């Protein structure tokens, strides 16, 4: 069944090609996009089922056996990430279709949204499947290039300003990544991750540290790790809601995924885990303090996004099975929840005309459904049990307590404080936007983008994600089984390497 492995990349790309050709048929375009992402989801689910049973699935692209060619590897982690990302991108696509985000500007001589969105998806899936360092870079480039287009869609003044920050910072991170690849190739003569695992071990420790820190830096920017994170709250909130949502949910996690992959496979015993833990703590605390200081929902959510990246780093930095498992679970949870919240924020903007707290009010009464769509994921984000945010945090706290180091204890404390402040921040949002009586009750009706009735597709897509996020609680048992086995597989390294090279390891 290895033929399934390339499909999560190929299908969206085919979709992109077709939607480019269908510029004049918006309805068909939408169908193609939906079809492509649904198919991707189906393939991802199949891959997860296959990898959960057996070992990693490996494809030598073009028949060029490793290490000569590029390998695509679907192990448990990759398959899990594929499923989640496919589900989320599909929901967001539905939402954006609901938003009436057709490629309406007839003047633009090419279609923009659908191809860019599908290519973004392909980039994400490629990054998850890459078994080759340079191909990982290419995956990143695909998703980044598409993200540049999506974040500036509409090209308004603020989107250009904020988009510039995003684009330039991302370009710098790409350059750093490429530099790291150049250095790693210079030192090892290979790009194959499985082979690198062996060859990097042979290098002097300081050189390993240098290479590792360059990779960490590149991925840390994308994952928005403090102090590399300040660009994120300045850039994400301005984009259109579905774009912000999918970026916030997914793109940062690709960075986290890359950190997990390289930390475990390439530098398992490196001295950098201390750095990771310190960064985790700072990211949590500085991020959540930023959220507390905000007075706009989207910006506030962006800061919580940064802050909660700290949780994932916490688990990665612990470098134990439990920690890694918790981190992976948290990644899954956070992709879904953060996306949901930004979609809900989009609905808030549509209903209330703004996302600025001091101009919103009374939404709980005006739009009770919206209230539910925001409240549940918000509680989930704040780690209120029994939601997945709590379960992820629980896994991490258990791992931290079990690790029993000074940094680990500090992080346990930091996690708790972050959780509380997250609750405080979203509690403020709820109090102001949903409970307080609005200052100008009819202001909402005045704005052109707002409507008394929220488009059904948008609500439906958000609801689907809310259900998905809540459903994580129900399936948390099996899910934690998967993440634990994925973590064990990662930490072992052996299954991955063996899957790529067969029995004889080069």
């Amino acid at each position, binding site marked *: 069944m290895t*033929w399934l492995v390339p499909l999560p990349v190929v299908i969206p*790309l085919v979709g*992109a*090609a077709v939607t*480019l*050709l269908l*510029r004049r048929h918006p309805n068909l375009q939408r169908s193609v996009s939906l079809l492509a992402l649904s198919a991707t989801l189906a393939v991802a689910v199949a891959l997860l089922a296959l990898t959960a049973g057996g070992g990693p699935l490996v*494809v*030598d692209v*073009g*028949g060029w056996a490793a*290490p000569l060619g590029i390998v695509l590897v679907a192990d448990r982690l990759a398959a899990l990430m594929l499923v989640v990302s496919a589900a989320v991108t599909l929901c967001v696509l539905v939402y954006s279709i609901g938003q009436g985000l057709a490629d309406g*500007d007839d003047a*633009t*001589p*090419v*279609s*923009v949204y659908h*191809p860019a969105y599908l*290519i973004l998806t392909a*980039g994400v899936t*490629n990054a998850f499947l890459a078994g080759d360092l*340079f191909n990982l870079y290419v*995956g990143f*480039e*695909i998703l980044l*290039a598409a993200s540049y*287009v999506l974040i500036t*869609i509409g090209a308004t003044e603020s989107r250009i300003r904020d988009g510039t920050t995003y684009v330039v*910072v991302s370009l*710098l991170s790409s350059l750093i990544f490429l530099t790291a690849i*150049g250095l790693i190739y*210079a030192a090892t*003569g290979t790009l*194959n991750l499985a082979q690198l695992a062996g*060859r990097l071990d042979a290098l*002097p420790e300081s*050189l390993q*540290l*240098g290479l590792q820190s360059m990779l*960490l830096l590149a991925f840390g920017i994308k994952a928005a790790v403090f102090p590399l994170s*300040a660009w994120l709250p*300045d850039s994400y909130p301005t984009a259109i809601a579905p774009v912000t949502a999918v970026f916030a949910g997914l793109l940062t996690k690709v960075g986290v995924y890359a950190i997990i992959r390289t930390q475990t496979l390439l530098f398992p015993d490196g001295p950098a885990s201390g750095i990771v833990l310190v960064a985790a703590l700072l990211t949590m*605390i*500085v991020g959540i303090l930023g959220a*507390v*200081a905000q007075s706009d929902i989207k910006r506030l959510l962006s800061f919580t996004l940064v802050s909660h990246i700290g949780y994932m780093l916490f688990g990665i930095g612990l470098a134990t099975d439990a920690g890694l498992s918790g981190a992976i679970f948290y990644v899954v949870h956070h992709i879904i929840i953060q996306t949901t919240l930004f979609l809900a924020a989009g609905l808030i903007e549509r209903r209330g005309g703004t996302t600025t707290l001091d101009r919103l009010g009374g939404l709980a009464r005006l739009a009770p459904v919206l209230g539910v769509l925001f409240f549940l994921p918000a509680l989930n984000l704040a780690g*209120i*049990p029994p939601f997945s945010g*709590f379960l992820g945090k629980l*896994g991490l*706290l*258990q791992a931290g*307590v079990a690790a029993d180091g000074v940094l680990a204890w500090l992080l346990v404390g930091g996690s708790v404080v972050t959780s509380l402040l997250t*609750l*405080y921040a979203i509690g*403020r949002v709820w*109090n102001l936007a949903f409970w307080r009586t609005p200052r100008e009750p009819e202001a909402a009706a005045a704005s052109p983008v707002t409507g008394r009735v929220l488009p059904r597709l948008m609500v439906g897509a958000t609801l689907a994600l809310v259900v998905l996020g809540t459903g994580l609680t129900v399936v948390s*048992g099996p899910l934690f*089984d998967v993440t634990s086995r994925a973590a064990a597989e990662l930490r072992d390294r052996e299954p991955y390497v063996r899957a790529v090279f067969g029995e004889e390891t080069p």
Partner: protein
Amino acid sequence: MLVLLTVHLIAAMLAPPLVRWLGLRAFSVLALVPAAGLGWALTHTAAMREGRAVAEVYPWAGRLGLELAFRMTTLSWLMVLLVGGVGALALVYCGRYFTAAEPGSGRFAGVFVGFAGAMLGLIVSDNLIVLYVFWELTTVFSYLLIGHDPSSRAARRAALQALIVTTLGGLAMLVGVIMLGEHAGTYRWSQVVGALPDGGYLAVAVILLLLGALSKSAIFPFSFWLPAAMAAPTPVSAYLHAAAMVKAGVFLVALLGPALADAASWRPTVLIAGTVTLLFGGWTALRQHDLKLLLAYGTVSQLGLLVVVLGAGFRDAALAGAMMLLAHAMFKAALFFVVGIIDHTTGTRDLRELSGLRRSAPALWVVTVLAAASMAGVPPLAGFVGKEAIFEAFLHGGRWEQLVLAGVVSGSALTVAYTLRFLWGAFSDKPAVAPRTVHRVSWAFLAPAALLAAGGLVAGLGAAPLDGLLAGYAGLYSDEGGYHLAVWHGLTPALALSALVLAAGAAVFGLTLRTRWWRRLRLPMDGATGYERSADGLGRLAVEVTGATQRGSLPVYLGTILLVLVVLGGGALVAGRPWPGRFHLWDNPLQLVPAAVLVVAAVFATRARRRLAAVVLVGVTGYATAVLFVLHGAPDLALTQFLVETCTMVMFVLVLRRLPGHFSVRPLVASRRIRVAIGIAVGAVVSGLAYVATAGRQATAISTAFGEPAVSYGGGRNIVNVTLVDIRAWDTMGEISVLLVAAIGVASMVFGGSPRLLRPRRPPPPTPPRGQVWLMAGHTLDAGLRSPILEVVTRLVFHTIVLFSVYLLFAGHNAPGGGFAGGLVVGLALVLRYLAGGRHELDAAAPVDAGAVLGTGLFIALGTGLTAMFLGGEVLQSALLDWHLPVLGHVHFVTSTFFDVGVYLVVIGVILNILRSLGAEIDRHEQAERVAAEARPEEELV
């Protein structure tokens, strides 16, 4: 128990529609749900009497030690009775308390039932994490209940405050739970007790657990949230703040006490915090004018008492505590109901405005007196039995217990005093106040309170049978206490203390009526101020930290990232000394020439003040790089680099033609120095890393094995090209996606809608002149821009250039070239057409949708990959086809050429799209502006 919980959940979700359907009657229906809990517990009375636990276990997330493990023992049984009973009564009461027009009553009912379910779950959980789950759920539901009327600012703030404070404690408790669980290897309390840690670890865990318990039960210093939460509707107060939620903390103390009371940190925490709360709450209650607040502070005080007693850590105290727990739930809920009735019928709860109620509502008066007497500890009511047991238990303790006893006695006296204040305030005739008349307090409205008040009497009189049940809990302590609950123990010291308490309380009440000085006695800083200060401090901290880290400036962000690079990379370099000594100056001395050019151009590029000058200098570095490629044996790179450099130059020119010639801002010297310093540091670190990494290479590169298979398997001699279209075709596929999407982005950016640029109808291009024309639309270009020489040469070389691109495409497999280079060459040919003939010429040269070219190209490239899969190979696998044909001889073909054709088309589409956007569309903008400027001649165009 899972069934019960599920019933609660379903009922909670059905409540809103039910209320919409049945109106207020729905509340009575819903009351059946908590009542079912009560009934269910009662069926297990026998088991409790026999000391058997009722247990159920369901799996959840085993990896986390999470399982739905439920276990009902005596303590939980008692709590289930209280929660179920009071819950059912509160719901019945709600049906009268609310009016049909009350907004959100459906939601309220749902949340209320949900809360009852959460409370039930909390009580019966054996798994500590599941307990925490329900614990937090009660917090959230109480948040929603307190904020039931969100238009009140006080309610909103109180709700948030309660949420934050109890969650703070809850999180601490969670960490404590995890500490115990990780140590024990299980989270089932019934098993954890057998595997407790010791020493400092245990002490810390206990403190954390108690933080949770104390904050939940509004114990000092967390007391402040409870009175503030009185913003909630009264049934809520009666339920949450008398019977249920606040009892969760007490429950936890009672649950953990038997196992943890001997931990070093347990008793000091519990006894001190409890006693302080008891006194503080009682004292503050005396000062209240609002009946509800009076009761709230009374509750705080009583909770302090319960914590002290249940946390004291020995059998008799535990027994007394259990009795007190029962008594308190009944009398306090009853009194809250009473307040609600008063509020509802008179419209006020201010005891300064209430007068004459005793006469106008005699039934209410009787019920109130009965409940209040229990609270004050008047025999033979349940409160009295509890108090007696407490006094008795502590009378026989050591010095600590004696001290606590003093506190308890004082606190009980205060209780008596505020009880009297309550009765006096609500019911007495006050000369200065007009008497309030109460119309018809319906029996149904009063019934819940009456039932509970009567319950106090029943429990008091039935103390002896209760003793048999509650002893099951007290027996968890292994000490030798032998006290039994009873209404009458004879003339004991405890009885004397009870009498003393009643007398002292009456005296204090009398004193407070007459004097005012005592009102000035307050705690120097209470928790509420602490909370406000913490919130303000948090705000300040958040603003300071955010202001310091979130500068909003792109250069600062980039600089930070680069500094991290310098620190991490530099650190690794420093750690790696001494550096390897083997290096060579150059591979080829000729490298010095382009290297020198490159260095000079790069340095001057940073200093250029004209845009195009900088562009040219950067372009020179590109050319120099290309030459370095040539010298390094990389002709494909050089070829592509030259083409890309030319394309880049054209793109810059197309954009910069519209921008001012000079850079707008002259950078400040200081900031320039910083930039240069960071630049040099980054350059040094990267150089260093490059040096060390290269010198560190031991292994042979994998690419040394490319040669033979490139020919035999990839079918080409140019290994770089085979790498691109075959070995690493997957990368190339990604790369063309990048290009494609970037081109889309360029169009999106330039064509993006903007009112200023609303396009006029495209004027038809002028008809071409008859006779010899060189280009399709050269005549449409402004005469001043045309050049016959350029047009003629373009006409003559255009096809040749395209032909050359095809050559590169096909020759690429064996010589420098390939799809990229070929596509770029066609792109530049189109550039030439555009330069010579303007935008209409571009349209004429490529009268196709750029998107179609892009899509087709991508499709072909992907199609190659998929076809290979359908034919049973791996994705993007290529096949070698060799034919012998007449005339042509040997024909050798590799299917990866198709892939390269896809690349070729995508690159053409990209350049075409860029040219349409940065060239043609910007032309149009320019033209539109010129037309607009001509329309308004007074405006000077610069």
